């Protein structure tokens, strides 16, 4: 199981843990993560406009490198996954964008969305399998009540992301079960935490973050796991003190369960 | 290609040996160094004459209409583009699939002898294919060609190296892609002309037609029991062109009858003794169908409804054509 791996800017700095535990767990599960040689920041926001070309180039370059390496492209950060997956979809389905990007990059071989983009969680589900994963758990997280926070970027728009049921996802809950813990379902797990406006409009971010965390807390969760450094920061830093819960990267718990933390 | 030839022959011998087929449909040498004739081999011994090289362009699928009705099983060799015609014939119930063992074989593009001759080559003794080179040995010495330069037009816009049907495949390790141009490029050029220029173009091309029916005979889609143009009762039967419109009529109707069924195998143009680019009529229909009704590849499978036996309630109106800009 070899994948080209796109870590993204934040995983090299503030979210080193997310990356580190992911790599350790991958090793334990027999997944080979080959970091792309020269990747550039994806921009962290998917440019939705039809006439945005330059802002999509870094994603396309990463996609092309993976294609040339002959592997699927694995992502870990939710934002990177969202941006790269949607740009890939543009390259596959929007002839105008495809033509303009190819004209700009002028690659030897035109790129038209051939690379498959998979999130680390999808690798766990579709390549490793949660049953197999459960067998490799040496340190079951018994008794832990964990709330999964999906946020927006992994799920929406469902027609493009094809990650899970956008309104009723189960992939992280299945992971939690495989690690021996108890998943806690709560209504706001796929509602926005307001992360994108944390810099600009902190009150909104605070309100959103609090509503997410309090919803999980009311449902009886001990902690929240996430795949997104921005959600991680936001749910922690912007949540009302009275409602706070520990926010953990899912990879950290995974590493713990697999005994490689 | 030499090793592919060997593998195919070996396979054919094995099929005879274990009795899984009683005939093999392939090619054999004709009168000249570049003449390859579709042929049915009935025993391993007969395979001595079997040949597979750059001149084996003929699409064998049409022969199966007759051959698959004979007793026993027949093995057929299909190049990737032939497999589309094969599928289309299966879809139209014209060949009996159960009586056929279809072997998909490798193709690195077929050679156009006219292009070789056009380079002034005379008195050809033999032709040697060597990777990307074609060496023509003549009485006056050797002449080397870049293979890509002497390929048939249809191979320059090859529709892909993947077979869409077959029971077994014999393929090269390194597959050669010969595609260098868009197959609609020439259609687009014609579309860009003025109507008068187009009329003159087609008038001069079609007036060369001698109604030899070679195009009709080779075309895998032209497989009617009796062609309307041969049927006294149809009201259009005509053995020869009685006026300048007759050949227009014949070729328009022929193209219309194969529209949505033509796999663009290009055999019509290859066999035309007058070198009329007949495939440009078929490709026009294909291009229109793709643009108007969504991309459709005849023969890509054996189930999908053809575009002329299907419709959408929101289809384009015919006024689309008369509303096109330009003169007239």
């Amino acid at each position, binding site marked *: 199981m070899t994948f080209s791996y796109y870590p993204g800017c934040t995983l090299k700095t503030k979210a080193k843990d997310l990356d580190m535990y992911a790599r350790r767990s991958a090793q334990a599960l027999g997944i080979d993560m080959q970091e792309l040689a020269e990747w550039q920041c994806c921009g962290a926001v998917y440019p939705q406009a039809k006439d945005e070309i330059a802002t999509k180039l870094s994603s396309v370059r990463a996609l092309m490198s993976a294609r040339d390496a002959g592997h699927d492209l694995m992502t870990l950060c939710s934002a990177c996954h969202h941006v790269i997956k949607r740009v890939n979809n543009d390259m596959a389905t929007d002839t105008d964008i495809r033509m303009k990007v190819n004209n700009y990059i002028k690659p030897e071989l035109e790129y038209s969305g051939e690379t498959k983009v998979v999130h680390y969680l999808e690798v766990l589900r579709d390549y490793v399998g949660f049953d197999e994963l459960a067998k490799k758990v040496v340190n079951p997280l018994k008794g832990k009540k964990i709330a999964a926070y999906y946020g927006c970027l992994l799920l929406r728009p469902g*027609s493009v992301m094809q990650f899970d*049921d956008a*309104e*009723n996802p189960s992939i992280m809950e299945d992971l939690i079960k495989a690690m021996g813990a108890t998943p806690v*379902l709560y*209504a*706001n797990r796929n*509602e926005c935490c307001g992360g994108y406006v944390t810099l600009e409009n902190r009150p909104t971010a605070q309100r959103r973050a609090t509503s997410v965390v309090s*919803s999980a807390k*009311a449902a009886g969760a001990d902690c929240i796991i996430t795949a997104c450094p921005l959600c991680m920061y936001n749910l922690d830093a912007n949540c009302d003190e009275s409602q706070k819960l520990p926010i953990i990267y899912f990879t950290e718990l995974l590493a713990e369960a697999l005994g490689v933390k | 290609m030499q090793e592919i030839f060997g593998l195919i022959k070996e396979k054919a011998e094995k099929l005879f040996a274990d009795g899984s087929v009683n005939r093999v449909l392939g090619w054999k040498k004709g009168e000249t160094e570049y003449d390859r004739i579709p042929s049915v081999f009935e025993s391993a011994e007969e395979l001595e004459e079997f040949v597979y090289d750059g001149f084996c362009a003929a699409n064998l699928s049409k022969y199966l209409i007759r051959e698959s*009705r*004979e007793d026993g099983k027949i093995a057929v060799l299909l190049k990737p583009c032939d497999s589309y015609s094969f599928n289309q014939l299966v*879809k*139209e*119930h*014209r060949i009996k699939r159960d009586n056929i063992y279809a072997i998909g074989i490798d193709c690195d593009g077929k050679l156009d002898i006219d292009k070789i001759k056009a380079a002034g080559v005379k008195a050809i003794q033999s032709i040697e294919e060597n990777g990307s080179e074609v060496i023509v040995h003549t009485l006056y010495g050797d002449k080397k060609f870049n293979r890509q330069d002497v390929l048939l037009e249809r191979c320059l816009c090859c529709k892909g190296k993947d077979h869409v049907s077959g029971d077994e495949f014999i393929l090269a390790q390194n597959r050669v892609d010969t595609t260098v141009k868009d197959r609609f490029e020439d259609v687009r050029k014609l579309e860009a002309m003025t109507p008068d220029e187009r009329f003159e173009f087609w008038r001069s091309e079609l007036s060369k037609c001698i109604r030899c029916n070679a195009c009709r005979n080779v075309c895998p889609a032209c*497989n*009617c*029991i*009796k*062609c*309307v143009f041969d*049927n006294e*009762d*149809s*009201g*259009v039967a005509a053995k020869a062109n009685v006026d300048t419109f007759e050949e227009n009529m014949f070729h328009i109707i022929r193209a219309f*009858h*194969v529209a949505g069924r033509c796999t663009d195998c290009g055999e019509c143009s290859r066999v035309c003794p007058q070198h009329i680019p007949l495939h440009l009529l078929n490709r026009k229909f294909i291009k229109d169908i793709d643009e108007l009704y969504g991309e459709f590849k005849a023969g890509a499978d054996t189930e999908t*409804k*053809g575009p*002329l*036996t*299907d419709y959408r309630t929101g289809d384009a109106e015919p006024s689309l054509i008369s509303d096109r800009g330009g003169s007239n």
Partner: protein
Amino acid sequence: MHRIGVFVCWCGTNIAATVDVKAVAEAARKEPGVVFATDYQYMCSEAGQALIRQAIKDNALTGVVICSCSPRMHEATFRKTVQAAGLNPYMLEIANIREQCSWIHKDIKEGTEKAIILARTAIAKVMLNKPLTAGESAVTKRALVIGGGIAGIQSALDIAEAGYEVDIVEKQPTIGGKMTQIDKTFPTLDCAACILTPKMVDAAQNEKIKIFSYSQVEEVKGFVGSFKAKIRKKARFVDENLCTGCGDCTSKCPSKKNKNEFNLGLDNRPAIYIPFAQAVPKVAVIDAEACIKKKTGKCGLCEKVCSAGAIKYDQQDEIIEREYGAIVVATGFNPIKLDKYDEYAYSQSPDVVTSLELERLMNAAGPTQGTLLRPSDGTHPHTIVFIQCVGSRCDDARGKSYCSKICCMYTAKHAMLIREKYPDTDVHVFYIDVRTPGKNFDEFYRRAVEQYGVDYIKGMVGKVIPHDGKLLVQGSDLISNEQVKIDADMVVLAAAIEPDPTARSVATMLTASIDTNDFFTEAHPKLRPVESPTAGVFLSGVCQGPKDIPETVAQASACAAKVIGLLAKDKLLSNPCVARADESLCSGCSVCQNVCPYGAITYEDREFRIPGPKRSEIRRVAQVNEAVCQGCGACTVACPSGAMDLKGFSTKQIMAEVDAICR
């Protein structure tokens, strides 16, 4: 040798004023094959017709051309005329020199010239006409109704009333359909069971009606007037003739925890059960997947308690073959599954229910005996939110593009009933549009608002959040331009309705067409709304498109009228101008079959002589069923070889017309 007679009508001055009729007759006489030509003031008059008959006899005519008004006017008249004179009625052509000539041209020279060309064209065509005979086929005087809901029952009752036999085939263990699950009906608020169950009993007691419950139509062959159907009667492991419906077995059955379909899974039923008290037939059925005896071989309690000895554990499916003259499709509908709409938390909270589930929760025979209680904790809900258009009017893959038509009205009904019975309960309805076209419908909706104080909010709900045993409903109120948040105890979703999943296979079986939503297509959207394009197949109820009960019943009766009209005939005469396949030319490619809207084309293997040592070969060739073909001609153009031709409008005939015009 052709001997054609041409008759030019003056139509008083209607034609004669702008067409020189004598010149037309004169010109026609010069055409090859014409042996007689004349003109007369009114060809359609008795005297005119006598003139034609006489001329046919005197001149031994083989074909007739009448230059007169439109064939749509008098073609049928003149066919009878020539037939009376011993000529085949199809050896006649009409040149339309009135509507399409004299009436639109003013210049007599121009009119005359054109009339001559039109006459010449008709002569050219009639020379190629062939005598045609309308086919005859017998009619089996029995109808098959597929689906035993209110639509099927009503159609069956009406057909039986006219004295014809009817079979109802229903896949459930009882007839009655969706209406049995409905509590009250709009706009009168009478109880659904009270008006439906008597009809179910009528159907069961009617001598002409035979009910095949727990059965499915497996195969239909044949064509209008003589269909042959195979019906699979599924084993219910209870002898229908012996069971008295006493219910002793159901109360003793130890396997009790099985989802009760009738109450939509809101409560449980035993493995042997009678769907509901008024079921028809009132006969028990064993759910083999839940039955302990069927699964393990041990138990057999029901057999012991059944005093009638009706339990038959080894009963097998039975195939019944029956013949029919007409088929009624009444396959009905289902609400869509809501698993793709989880923003409304349907799968997360039992207190989010569909409207049909609410019907059960309010019905006296339902799981709560008619008291409205929350499924989660059995308490009275005090705030209820209704969400309209869930899955209707959608552009995406999740929902349906159409309006489900019934939801606005039943939601008003639900809201009104709740407010009446539980005045302390607040009811909010989120709507996009309120659609109430129907007799007394808008008045009904207004009553819900004005008399019962139901809160209608124009806007849509974006998210339902289960929270602390409540449901936080967040939606927009477009009129006050605000986002509203309502703490609700229950949420009711007006799920879109879709055709029953069997519609597609039934359509295939009958070669009836369905649209992209799987609703059956009518033969003509305005003028033949209860017929399918396939002759002898009729449409009743929601299988054709969303409908409420009154509309369904009206359509069911209309459908029955059509069936009765067909069954009343002893013989069916078919239009002889139908397609014909020339087997010697047909290559069996199926292209004609693909464009035939009636499924009139089938294929057969035929042996043909061929040159060569084999002497003959088997070829697949097209066959046209003349009773089914309607003569559109789509196949004739699809066929590249010209093997397919249309009688009365043959390729040669039309070519001759073209040639005659361009001469």
